[in-house]
């Protein structure tokens, strides 16, 4: 019955209840929102790795080279093809593939200007890893593959000047299966239309051609720009990083799920460590606020506590009452804060569109089709974050109630009544 009595007292002291609940709710909402956004962005970015069937992407990043009709995309640089094989031999590595990201400039028939097409040279034998992955590897539990052939066929090892193009590019260029189109000074035949499913595509391109053909176009030997690596064991990652740095040099850029979020232009820059720091600061401030409110409540309620004790309430009964009231504030604050926090995370997804880091997107600003860099943001709160948020609210509520009840228990009934 003390619980129902506590509820009445709590609910009818509206101003104090609103203050206690809103203080807790705001802080919990902040924590849940930041944690959920961070997790969701990280998840979306991680999904782009999974879509390519990879755990790690190795690149070499340099200052952009001068213009050429066929040039390496963005600020990437050529990596010797032997590195792909070397990485594959690292213990714990499951599979690798090298991709050559190129921009091929061709004359626009209408304006006469040189216009780039984003090209990815891919190994036709590697359908389970890379930017044109259409199949899952055997036993793979990962996300759906990034791409699907809607018409035509996948590249063959015997293909040369053949290309799979995205549906968007086909529409923009009005191309059909069997048509020929220019990539730099070369003419390619369309053998397939690819549907790049929604989400960010690492080394995504408008045209996918055989790797050997791309290497001939670039005329730089057997080189690649991006190496996709899938791991059997997570502990192989440091070895891959070490090897990549030793073979490629200081410009080596190794991207994995662990660091991909940090480079994403969104709240995902909030790393796990930052998140814990923010959480600790916010919770400490809220704890101080709630404790101060609870102690002030005891000071204001000397009369009530005196009457309760005069009518036979034991110190323990008064303690239970005050703790119950604080717990109500904690439960309601925790629930309201959690709901508001998830709402804020959803709102964030509609206002801010997180995107893949620029280094992982091969498209220039003036590409024919839109770069597949936007990440499908879906606010998915972690069960653990929700449990932790409610638990934090309850702990704060209990602690403040306990401190308040200790002060109330020390109050002598006659003295409390005399203060009226």
């Amino acid at each position, binding site marked *: 019955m003390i619980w129902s009595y506590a509820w009445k007292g709590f609910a009818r002291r509206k101003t104090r209840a609103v203050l206690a609940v809103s203080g807790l709710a705001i802080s919990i909402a902040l924590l849940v929102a930041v944690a959920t956004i961070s997790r969701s962005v990280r998840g979306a970015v991680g999904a782009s790795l999974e879509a390519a069937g990879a755990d790690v992407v190795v690149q070499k990043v340099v200052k952009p080279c001068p213009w050429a009709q066929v040039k390496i995309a963005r600020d990437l640089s050529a990596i010797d093809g032997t590195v792909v094989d070397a990485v594959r031999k690292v213990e714990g590595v499951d599979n690798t593939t090298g991709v050559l990201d190129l921009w091929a400039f061709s004359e626009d028939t209408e304006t006469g200007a040189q216009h780039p097409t984003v090209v990815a040279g891919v190994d036709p034998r590697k359908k389970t890893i890379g930017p044109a992955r259409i199949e899952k590897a055997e036993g793979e539990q990962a996300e759906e593959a990034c791409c699907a052939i809607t018409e035509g066929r996948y590249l063959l090892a015997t293909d040369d000047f053949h290309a799979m193009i995205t549906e968007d590019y086909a529409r923009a260029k009005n191309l059909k299966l069997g048509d020929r189109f220019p990539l730099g000074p070369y003419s390619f035949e369309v053998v397939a239309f690819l549907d790049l499913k929604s989400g960010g595509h690492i080394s995504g391109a408008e045209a996918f051609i055989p790797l050997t053909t791309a290497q001939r176009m670039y005329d730089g030997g057997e080189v690649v720009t991006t190496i996709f690596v899938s791991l059997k064991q997570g502990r192989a990652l440091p070895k891959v990083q070490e090897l990549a740095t030793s073979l490629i040099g200081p410009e080596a850029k190794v991207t994995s799920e662990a660091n991909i979020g940090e480079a994403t232009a969104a709240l995902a820059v909030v790393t796990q460590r930052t998140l814990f720091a923010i959480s600790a600061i916010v919770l400490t401030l809220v704890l101080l606020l709630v404790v101060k409110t609870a102690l002030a409540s005891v000071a204001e309620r000397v009369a009530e506590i005196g*009457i309760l004790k005069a*009518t*036979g309430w034991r110190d323990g009964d008064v303690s239970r009452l005050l703790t119950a009231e604080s717990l109500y504030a904690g439960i309601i604050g925790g629930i309201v804060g959690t709901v508001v926090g998830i709402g804020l995370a959803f709102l964030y997804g509609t206002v801010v569109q997180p995107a893949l880091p620029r280094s992982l997107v091969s498209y220039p600003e003036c590409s024919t089709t839109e770069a597949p860099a936007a990440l499908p943001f879906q606010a998915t709160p972690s069960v653990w974050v929700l449990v932790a948020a409610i638990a934090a609210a309850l702990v704060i509520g209990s602690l403040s109630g306990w401190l308040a009840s200790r002060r109330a228990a020390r109050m002598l009934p006659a003295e409390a009544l005399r203060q009226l």
Partner: protein
Amino acid sequence: MDIRIEHVAKSYRLGQVDVAALRDVSLDLPAGDFVSLSGPSGAGKSTLLGVVGGLEKPDTGKVFAGEQDLTALDSEGLAMYRRHSVGFIFQSFRLLPALTALENVMVPLVPLDESEAAKQQQVVEALERVNIAHRANHLPGELSGGEQQRVAIARAIVNRPDVILADEPTGELDRKNGELIMQLLRELNQAGSATIIVASHDPDVVGAARRQVKLEDGCVVGQTTQEE
């Protein structure tokens, strides 16, 4: 329940000075008695009520409620004594403003291990005894002074106490309501075996008691008993 007070002294610290509130007070109050404590402000009336009600302990002396030595009880024991044996009525009613009349009367029963229905029944009976049941769902702010004091009396009797202690129960009431409250206390005294001790400096209230104890400067300076 007989109340026996033996050589009780009590003083308070006021700044740097000890102020004696009670000095060597001894009284025997038989069960069912209706006693008034009179005297000027600072005579020790409220302190004596507090000592008898187990709200505070004397510095020296003994207080017995029946066979129980209140001075030997710890805070838990005193709380249980107040819970089962004592009902308090205060000058300014001391109702909790956020609770209805019914809920205020329920307050002493809240920690008890009884069914909700049994408690509810006790509360309704107490409200009916003081003729305020029709205002059970009103907040104190919606009640007149007389009605509030009735609710306070209902709260004092809801646990069926052996001793009812009233500190200036008519102090904030007009004459008519004051008389009604005293009439009610007399009826309660006659209807049961509860000892009623009223502290007041109002001659009408003092005169309503069967036994009148006069205090001055912390000492009993006179006792008179009215014949029935």
